[in-house]
């Protein structure tokens, strides 16, 4: 009986999040070097609910995480570095324009009128510089990339109401890309 109660309690928290989380994925991954730069797209980042939320004036942020690991054969991979940046958008309905800020380009806000352009800019990361301290030539490294909706800032009262609902959410799986460093 106690086990059932514990399971029920955990289910109350976990099930809605698991059920409502949107499926998104990393596509068009590209790596250029030197210097080490990555480009990729997030496919499926937007759904109707997220678009509506943004159009209703709620600020939204996409969080991107890049991890670099040295691949070891017989031992766990060695963590070399971790880079995290975000794309933020907020819609101004008065001027019918989107104000975006992309961390990898310095984070200076800029405005676009076109929704598709906004979506493209939000879901695209182009030539993001990954600058590890040192890479050993001949060694194999692994780049791991992941994107998630950082948050949509709901009104305060709604945060309490829907703490258990994650309708505005997506999270990609880790995208892996192995490469061997050359000079």
């Amino acid at each position, binding site marked *: 009986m106690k086990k059932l109660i514990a399971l029920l309690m955990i289910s109350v928290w976990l099930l809605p999040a698991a059920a409502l989380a949107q499926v998104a994925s990393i596509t068009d991954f590209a790596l250029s070097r030197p210097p080490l730069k990555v480009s990729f797209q997030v496919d499926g980042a937007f759904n109707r609910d997220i678009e509506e939320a943004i159009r209703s004036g709620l600020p939204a942020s996409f969080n991107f995480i890049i991890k670099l690991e040295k691949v070891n054969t017989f031992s766990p991979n060695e963590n070399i570095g971790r880079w995290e940046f975000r794309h933020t958008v907020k819609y101004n309905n*008065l001027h019918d324009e989107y104000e975006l800020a992309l961390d990898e380009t310095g984070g200076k806000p800029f405005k676009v009128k076109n929704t598709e352009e906004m979506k493209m800019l939000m879901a695209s990361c182009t030539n993001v510089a990954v600058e590890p301290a040192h890479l050993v030539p001949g060694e194999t490294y692994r780049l791991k990339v992941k994107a998630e909706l950082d948050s949509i800032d709901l009104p305060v009262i*709604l945060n309490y109401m*829907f703490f*258990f609902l*994650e309708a505005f959410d997506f999270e990609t799986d880790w995208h892996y890309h192995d490469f061997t460093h050359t000079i």
Partner: protein
Amino acid sequence: MNDIQSIEAEARRRKRELYIILAVVPAILLLTYVESHVASLGSGIPIATNIFIFGLININIILLILLIFLVLRNMVKLFMERKSRLMGSRLRTKLVTAFVSLSIIPTFLLFFVVIGFINKSIDGWFGIKVEDSLKESLELAQNYYRDMNDRVASASRALALTAADEGLLHDSEKVAGFIERKLTEGDFSTIEVYAADGARSHFAISSKINRNMIPDVDPLSISKALKGEATGWVQTLDTSDVVWGIAPIPLPGGKVAGAMVVSYYVPRSLVEKMKEISAAFQGYRQLKLMKFHVKASYFTILLIITLLIVFFSIWIGRYLAKMLTVPIHELAEGTHAVASGNLDYRIKVESDDEIGLLVKSFNRMTEDLKAGKMNLEAANLDLRRTNTELDQRRQYIEIVLGNVPAGVVSIDKIGRLVSINRVAADMLGTDEGRALGRHYREVLREEDREVLREMFREMSEMELDSMERQMRVTVNGASMTVLVNLNALKDETGSYIGMVAVLDDLTHLLKTQRMSAWKEVARRIAHEIKNPLTPIKLSAQRLRKKYLDRFPQEDTVFDECTMTIIKQVDDLKNLVNEFSNFARMPAANPSPNDLNEIVGEVMALYKSGQRKVKIESSVDQRLPVLDIDRDQIKRVLINLIDNAVAAVEEEGVVSVETHFLEDLKLARLEVADTGGGIQAEIKQRLFEPYFSTKKTGTGLGLAIVSNIISDHNGYIRVRDNQPRGTRFVIELPVKAVAV
């Protein structure tokens, strides 16, 4: 044993609670951790508030689940109790059902009404009219900006063309006057003219505007204009907006002489209003976006509240039912205990309501019952004591009646035998067990019945309360003379309740009286007859001595007569001596003697002298030493054997036997012959003095035998020997004799 079990159960329960706590605490911590990662709360909310909210939510959910668990557990328990037909479970089920019904119906009614109301209200919030109004307001604001943008942009282009057409660029004063005039005409905030090198050449600002309110124009836009590209945009400031319009000043040949920049400062009040419209529309859109979730949230909250009410009502129902049924259960158990005889049972339910009154009444009733029972037990004890005493008295009376030599018989007023002792039963030829409760007519023999009936009749006629009468009865073939003393029984009020008859055996008394009479007669006869016998004999002897010689030998008359006289006088003298011996028979002088030895001695006398008659003896070696008078017993034996030998006449058998009746503590001496036997009527008088069947007998032999046996506290009786002859049976008591 029960106490030990309950202590162990309590210990197990506590241990289980400890395990639950140990499981729940990490579960709460885990849930909080999960919540903090799953639920993305706004960054603007303080962490303390988040923790507080999470804590509250956790507690609420845990409590809700705990409540559900407890309620379900209780429901299952109630179901199991009802299934096992536990006392009070039916009433508890009914009460819980009633409470649940009473609470569920209005609660769910309210739930659905409120749901409908909320649904309608929320739908009302997002009505088309509201959205349209907000949208139109926003479009109005947007149009304003669009129009203003177009106007400023158009103005910049128009001013640039005019300045180029009129060739004003070469005259600085004309340019200044021109832009000042256009500033006033167009109600713009500023008008600036940039030269082809990008430097500002002229600047005019409205008197309504403070210079600090207008920022510098974006150089990039100036560069674009100098390249021939006209642009227009709205610059959002902290407090207001500025609408910019930039257009190149063309020269013939497609060249650009400079750039004309026009700005319009949107009034702060206007901007704020439009921002309010924008915020309202945004808020509306956000709420609309959350419409379903708001509804779901309200539904969830309402559902939780409804469930809480339902569960709480179930809980309260069960609690109240328990409050009612526990005392009832206690009462039922108490009733069962009292019915089983446990009057010390008390119900410990303390309450001031009607149940409490009932319990108090029950306890008082139990106390009264206990007091009553104690009184009853005391009365019962007294009664039993009295009954015991009565029973003892009755037993004592029965023992007395059973041991008195007289027979006692009582009958009730309708003639049924109420009591009869053994002696009376023997006398009346019946059995005690058979006779009790039956009518005397069914019990008594015909001759006895007639005597009693005659006595009843006479008592009735003469109105007597008592009457005595002798009657003869035959017991075991022996005739007895019985004195019947009949008394009417009356109670305290004098009512007749029956009769009691006392039967006295007069046989022995009469026999003794007769014996005494005979002894007296014998003594007197001996005295009166013996005295003249000696002179008669002496006279006869003198006559013979003096005159016998005088008679011739042929004449034998004298001789015969005197001899006859002398012989008859001797016979008479012997007879008189017998009578005298009988009258003066000495008292028995008992001493420890072996009866078998006495028998042996007597048998020795007869065995040698008897040839025709076969004399046998059989002795019981177990026979102990008896306290008897050796000579008298020997005389008894000789008398009986003489009689037996005489009875046998010719060939026959005389047997002498001794037996030891251990149970009865009696020594039995039997002398039997195979002679002609004795008739029944003779048997009755056989032991009377001077009664003899022999022609020469004095009739004193058996009388003396009987007398000796009586002196030894023994008993002699005669009965027929089988297959023929007579058997005398003597029974002597065996006592502990010190040898």
